């Protein structure tokens, strides 16, 4: 029996997985640790704790400006990417059409592409077109990488979508717009929401594309990098910790929203069953 011999292997795999997950979180924990250290230059073990770097970050006008720029970029990237990717995902997974196989490969190409090179290529492109780079061009640059990723995420949802539902609604006299609003969008909404979260946070954290496409404007990751390389300040781990905190809040909020949705859905279903 092979089953009996797998007991030990199984235990080892579990231990290994837990260890690797812990390993993934080590740097984030150390950044948070450093953000509360009193000394200007980090050393371990930390002897004195302090929150003055947080005060500095909150009071700094330049940090505020960075955060606003990053937020502007991330919000616009999210909105445009999700709209484009929604259509793109229907073409990817919903409809059977002639060029689909080729289309699937083309759409995924930018994900397989080194971002730094993509950023530089876009810089050349903007300058050839006579466009001055700023945070608006960064929105475009981020989208080249993020639209394909969001398309992929929404496609996974679309594969599980039964086209017969749309046809049934059409047969019952719904207009195309009604079908989209009442059937397609609600069913695909988990994919659209996770796509939005990914678009927002990937744009918010992106460095290589921003580096070459923001021009005189600066995003948070660019500033962090510049300060790491030259002119270190303990505001680096502090702002880093705050960004991570923000990401955690976004993920948790979406998770709670999902739970609420499922709960309401279940209650509605129970109601229907009761009425019957």
């Amino acid at each position: 029996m092979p089953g009996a011999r797998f007991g030990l292997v199984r235990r080892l795999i579990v231990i290994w997985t837990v260890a690797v997950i812990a390993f993934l979180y080590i740097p984030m924990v150390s950044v948070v640790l450093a953000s509360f250290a009193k000394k200007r230059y980090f050393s371990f073990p930390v002897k004195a704790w302090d929150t003055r770097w947080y005060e500095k970050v909150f009071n700094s006008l330049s940090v505020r400006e960075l955060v606003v720029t990053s937020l502007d970029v991330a919000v616009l990237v999210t909105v445009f990417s999700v709209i484009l990717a929604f259509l793109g995902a229907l073409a990817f997974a919903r409809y059977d059409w002639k060029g689909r196989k080729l289309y699937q490969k083309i759409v995924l190409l930018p994900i397989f592409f080194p971002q730094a090179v993509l950023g530089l290529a876009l810089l050349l492109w903007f300058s050839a077109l006579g466009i001055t780079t700023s945070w608006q061009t960064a929105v475009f640059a981020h989208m080249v990488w993020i639209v394909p990723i969001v398309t992929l995420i929404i496609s996974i949802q679309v594969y599980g979508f039964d086209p017969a539902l749309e046809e049934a609604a059409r047969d019952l006299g719904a207009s195309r717009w009604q079908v989209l609003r009442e059937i397609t969008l609600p069913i695909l909404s988990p994919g659209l929401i996770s796509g939005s979260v990914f678009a927002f946070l990937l744009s918010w954290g992106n460095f290589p594309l921003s580096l070459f496409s923001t021009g005189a404007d600066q995003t948070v990751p660019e500033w962090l990098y510049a300060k790491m390389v030259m002119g270190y300040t303990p505001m680096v781990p502090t702002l880093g910790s705050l960004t991570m905190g923000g990401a955690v809040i976004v993920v948790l909020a979406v998770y709670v929203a999902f739970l609420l949705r499922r709960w309401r859905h279940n209650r509605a279903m129970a109601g229907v069953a009761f009425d019957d």
Partner: protein
Amino acid sequence: MKAWREPGFLVAAPVMLFLLIGFAGPLLMVFGYSFMPPRTFSLAQVPTLANFVSVITDSFYISFLWSVGLASVTVALLLLICYPIAYGMAKLFGKWANLVTVLIAIPLLVSENIRLFGWVLVLLKGGILDGTVKMLFGTGLPSLLYTVPSIVFGLVYVYLPFMLFPLVIGLSLVPDSLKEAAYDLGASRLEVFREVELPLAMPGILIGCMLTFILALGSLAESKILGGQVIIMIADDIESAFTYAQDWPKGSVLSVMLILFSGGLVYYLFRRVDLDRLIRRG
């Protein structure tokens, strides 16, 4: 029905148009510049192969070879690290697999810079690792930062999910019944692994290896933040050609090398893999 009136084509059009402007355009630009004379800033020059020659004569291929080498080591390490986890997620963990997926995906949503900076704090002289060892054993460690292994370490850390998730998809394509049948017919575990599991999981393994190889090949932040310029990787060279050196044609020619090399691999990959089948499972 005419091809352009199919609904699939219509919904694909916006994305295709966007990628034409945002992806194909810039790439053609880079190809164009790679044939321009060194240190020129427009495409209206007589094409030349001077840049391609200078890659050899000015030894720019060295940074390319470093990148290929480090990327290969990274892929090999990731395969060893991720395979058992992927196996667990596909076959053993059951409902826990979702939690593991989320826990591994969350760090992806934190900027790569911040995470690499966290490792700087760990590996730094007087940092977390050094400080801990000193507390336990009395003597500290030599500086671990700014070495070639620290770059590989950073690459393995950053690209781990990009190996793991494709492997999970690949391994979940292997039906348990087939493995059981092989055992019943008297195959050893090694034989089952080699003859059943590996070939069936191959699309996922290929995607994971290619994806991490290409991402590592074009990486910039790891060698800058953890490697501190101990060696120059190809993306570094490309960046400095465009910025400090102000030599766009040179930067372009190095980019073209990287693009063609990665492009060849992706072409090979896409020929061997059915995307529909993989993603639907995922």
